[in-house]
């Protein structure tokens, strides 16, 4: 009964590969997000979707492509992985107004070698 679940938790892959991270929420929220946490622990938004529609795209390389098949799912596909993509990626969800707060998944630690 996890509220926001991400898979996989860990991902180790070689440069140049393509990989996907999946996210699902069962809170009935209509807005979902991807955040990136860098090696200095700074958390920054990448994308936001509201009811399957892209709302925010924060100057992220177009190798990153989010996809929202429905409002409970937001997946992140990354093409041609680079060393600098190594980070922890968090999925989150909220109501459109953000009232009652944002709920985060447990994160996916991506390591590109």
């Amino acid at each position, binding site marked *: 009964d996890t509220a926001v679940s991400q898979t996989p938790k860990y991902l180790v892959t070689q440069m140049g590969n393509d990989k996907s991270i999946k996210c699902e929420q069962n809170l009935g929220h209509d*807005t979902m*997000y991807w955040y990136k946490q860098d090696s200095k*622990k*700074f*958390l*920054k*938004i990448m994308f*936001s979707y*509201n009811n399957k529609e892209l*709302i*925010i795209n*924060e100057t992220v390389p177009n190798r990153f492509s989010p996809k929202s098949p429905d409002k409970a799912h937001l997946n992140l596909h990354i093409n041609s992985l680079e060393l600098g993509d190594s980070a*922890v990626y*968090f999925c*989150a969800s*909220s109501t*459109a*107004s*953000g*009232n*009652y*707060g*944002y*709920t*985060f998944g*447990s*994160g996916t*630690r991506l390591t590109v070698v």
Partner: protein
Amino acid sequence: GIQVEQSPPDLILQEGANSTLRCNFSDSVNNLQWFHQNPWGQLINLFYIPSGTKQNGRLSATTVATERYSLLYISSSQTTDSGVYFCAGRPGGGATNKLIFGTGTLLAVQP
């Protein structure tokens, strides 16, 4: 854009001590939250506190929205309180729904 400053950046406590963490915003924010990132990397929601004061066990938080700051109080600290504490808020005005995070306070509680 909005800046979120947290202080102190690092804190070492002996078990049983109390502490206060502060979060300052450069502009008005909505939907202020406090999170604890534990040593395993999980982001745990502590408080959703756009204004006022809330308490949950040994933790409490106060937000003074008009003065653009929030405080997190930890009393009788335990080693399990170790980790990074983040505050985050959504810029006021409703133009965006992105949550802006502070730089965090790294807390180490020693036995």
